[in-house]
């Protein structure tokens, strides 16, 4: 096969688009190749237009590209909307009924097959056709399709193979060996696994895209760790979590912007009562309901400033699906070690995209902490939302208030010292370059891909820990810089304003706020303009 290629699967919601893309993703991951899958779907259950892009490569890939080699179209809309993305030699696979209309829309090669004949297994037939025209053996595909419709799927795959065997010349078939040790996971799953690795016992969440998959995954894994429960609302979620952590269980919650807003009061309580509180905060495009199923990076300021009063907190924004595993486990342990709120800030590009990953489980630990719980000691364990003395009794005494506030804020200093051992910032590209490009969270993926497409020299600086802000390392990195750029998927440049606030750096901003992730090609072009 060539170094890399991309497949776009599109159709209406309910046609099994996501399943088809994930099955392709698993197929190539287990075959030893690197995969990144992006899912684009509307907030509808049936109808509308959904598509997924599967990028397959010999090298590690961190984002999808809008340059497609094969389109598998389950409706005419897919041809209409995406044929422009097709490469010169690109092909479109569709049902025979769409052939006539598709030919009017594009000059690209159309392979019309009787996909709809297989009913609900049309998606299996579609991906089988895609594999065959790229010269892959479908035999191994059958091993992956373990589904309710397994027999129908097998019939579909076999029939498509017979048809294409006659029509298309299949070159030397790629013999692929399935190795299930390699994992094909989305960010929600790596986050969940990270939390479990750190000793998660209770998970509470109210459904909200794009954080719900963490709940779905953990609900299935309850036997491995404890309980995953969906209470009446996010306020309940946060307070259940604080009760649970107070009673000694490592607990986490998951939500998105709107749900997180409802948790602010409990976040502040966590700060005051010094109860570990772990939040998986998956951003989506706001404000308000915004664009529920699309991505954005517009809640950095929200999580940094959330909750009234002053208290230390830990905020980490893992930049890749793989990193999310390690940092989720760290976030849990840090919350317990320092008894503070700990926020894992991600976005839809991480929680809902899939990637072939290898999780380094040796790096994570289920740490034990010496904290008193009710029932564990004979002395009463009292926690309080009121200002309180060391025993937990309410106080209005100015000396004690000052002492306790200082005691809590001291934890921030200790946390900063503790975090010195961590890689708080990722530096990539030409280190010590005069050109510095900042980004955070999932945008790193698109930037790394964009870098491969431009000859411009620059250093990528991606802060992973955003609170306490890693000032020292960043100051060092920019000390010789001539040009500083900051790339973010929001409208105001929230990391840029942090840089200004903390380090008096005023970067050139490249922003995107159409609720779609950065396209590496477009980003490369923009960087060339600015650099």
């Amino acid at each position, binding site marked *: 096969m060539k170094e890399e290629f991309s497949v776009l699967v599109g159709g209406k919601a309910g046609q099994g688009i996501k399943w088809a893309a994930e099955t392709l993703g698993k197929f190539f991951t287990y075959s030893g190749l690197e995969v990144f899958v992006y899912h684009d779907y509307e907030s509808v259950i049936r109808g509308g237009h959904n598509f997924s892009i599967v990028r397959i490569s010999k090298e590690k890939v961190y984002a999808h590209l809008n340059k497609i080699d094969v389109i598998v179209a389950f409706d005419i809309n897919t041809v209409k909307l995406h044929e422009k993305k097709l490469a010169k030699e690109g092909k479109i696979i569709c049902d025979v009924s769409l052939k006539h209309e598709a030919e009017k829309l594009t000059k690209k090669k159309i392979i019309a097959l009787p996909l709809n004949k297989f009913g609900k297994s049309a998606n299996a037939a579609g991906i089988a056709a895609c594999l065959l025209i790229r010269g892959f053996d479908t035999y191994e595909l059958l091993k992956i399709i373990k589904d309710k419709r397994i027999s129908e799927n097998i019939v579909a795959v076999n029939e498509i193979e017979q048809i294409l065997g006659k029509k298309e010349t299949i070159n030397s078939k790629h013999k692929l060996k399935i190795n299930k040790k390699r994992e094909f996971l989305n960010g929600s799953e790596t986050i969940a696994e990270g939390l479990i690795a750190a000793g998660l016992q209770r998970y509470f969440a109210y459904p909200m895209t794009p954080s719900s998959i963490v709940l779905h995954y953990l609900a299935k894994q309850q036997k491995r760790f404890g309980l995953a429960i969906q209470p009446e609302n996010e306020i309940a979620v946060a307070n259940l979590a604080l009760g649970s952590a*107070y*009673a000694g269980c490592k607990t986490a919650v998951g939500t998105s912007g709107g749900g997180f807003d409802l948790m602010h009061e409990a976040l502040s309580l966590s700060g005051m009562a010094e109860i570990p509180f772990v939040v998986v905060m998956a951003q989506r495009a706001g404000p308000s309901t915004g664009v529920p199923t699309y991505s954005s990076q517009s809640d950095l300021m929200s999580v940094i400033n959330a909750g009234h009063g002053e208290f230390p907190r830990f905020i980490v924004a893992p930049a890749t699906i793989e990193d999310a595993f390690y940092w989720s486990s760290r976030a849990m342990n840090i919350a317990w070690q320092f008894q503070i709120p700990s926020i894992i800030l991600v976005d839809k590009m991480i929680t809902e995209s899939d990637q072939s990953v290898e999780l380094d489980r040796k790096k994570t630990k289920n740490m034990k902490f010496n904290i008193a719980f009710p029932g564990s000691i004979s002395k009463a364990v009292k*926690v309080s939302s009121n200002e309180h003395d060391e025993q937990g009794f309410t106080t209005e005494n100015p000396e004690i208030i000052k002492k306790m506030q200082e005691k809590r804020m001291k934890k921030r200093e200790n946390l900063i010292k503790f975090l010195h051992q961590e890689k708080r910032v990722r530096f990539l590209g030409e280190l010590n370059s005069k050109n510095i490009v900042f980004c955070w969270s999932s945008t790193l993926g698109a930037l790394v891909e964009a870098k491969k497409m431009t000859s411009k020299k620059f250093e990528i600086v991606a802060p992973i820990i955003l609170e306490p802000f890693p000032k020292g390392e960043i100051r060092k990195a920019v000390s010789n810089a001539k040009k500083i750029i900051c790339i973010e998927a929001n409208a105001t440049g929230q990391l840029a304003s942090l840089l200004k606030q903390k380090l008096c750096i005023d970067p050139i901003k490249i922003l995107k706020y159409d609720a779609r992730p950065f396209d590496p090609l477009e980003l490369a072009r923009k960087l060339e303009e600015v650099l």
Partner: protein
Amino acid sequence: MQGHSILWSLQENWRRFYKMKKEENFETATINTWCPGCGNFGILAALKEALKELSRKHGKENIVMVGGIGCHAKILDYVNVNSFYGLHGRTLPVMTGIKLANPKLQVIGFAGDGDAYAEGIGHLIHAAKRNTDVTAIVHNNGVFALTTGQATPTAAFGFVDKSTPQGNLENPINPVKLMLAAGATFVARAYAGDIEFLKEIILKAVAHKGFSFIDVLQPCVSFNNTFALYNKKVYRMKGKLSFDEAMKKADETEKIPIGIFYEHHKDSYEEVAFEKRNLLKS
């Protein structure tokens, strides 16, 4: 030498005895700041009596008190037992979280009528629906007292206060009926002026497996002094009621019945949650 050691052991025994005696009263060093004559004193007295029995039965360390925000919640500072002094209206989710984390703990929650019936009414209904094995005690005085007098959801129609100087425009809710309809498996009403009976009800509520709810009529001497009214109208109920009888009884206003309106048995939420988890395919 021997004399010394006997003396020491006597002293130690005395110290232990004294400590036990002190612990038994669950006293703390916090100065009580409720208004003199407040109905909350009755609830505190009944609770302390009940706690004596409960700590013998479950061990003091296994009892957890949870409170919201308001006059009622100060009770946590006055009792030397594990406690979680939470947010206004959020007593019930904290209680559920504690119980789900460690089902061995006996969780007793305290909420004001503002907490339970205004800010956090959704949580109350859901706790009843879930049948979480916790006990919720609502200090119902029909007024926001710590904020110096505003109407709550149980304030009477026409009640004059700082926020409704023209008189309360809304009719009060009936907490007993609300909890019956929500599926609570133990629904009781008590009166802060009948300490002995309140203590009995608390003990029965904690012993009940599943969600237990006690609405405690609590006069507020500063903003809604109902002592004289309740002393005249309140009477202890006898015998068991069916669900329909309980619904009817809860409507009585000429005389005010106190006691257990309804109790029935159903698996608690925690039992079901752990059982269902074990049925999952791994």
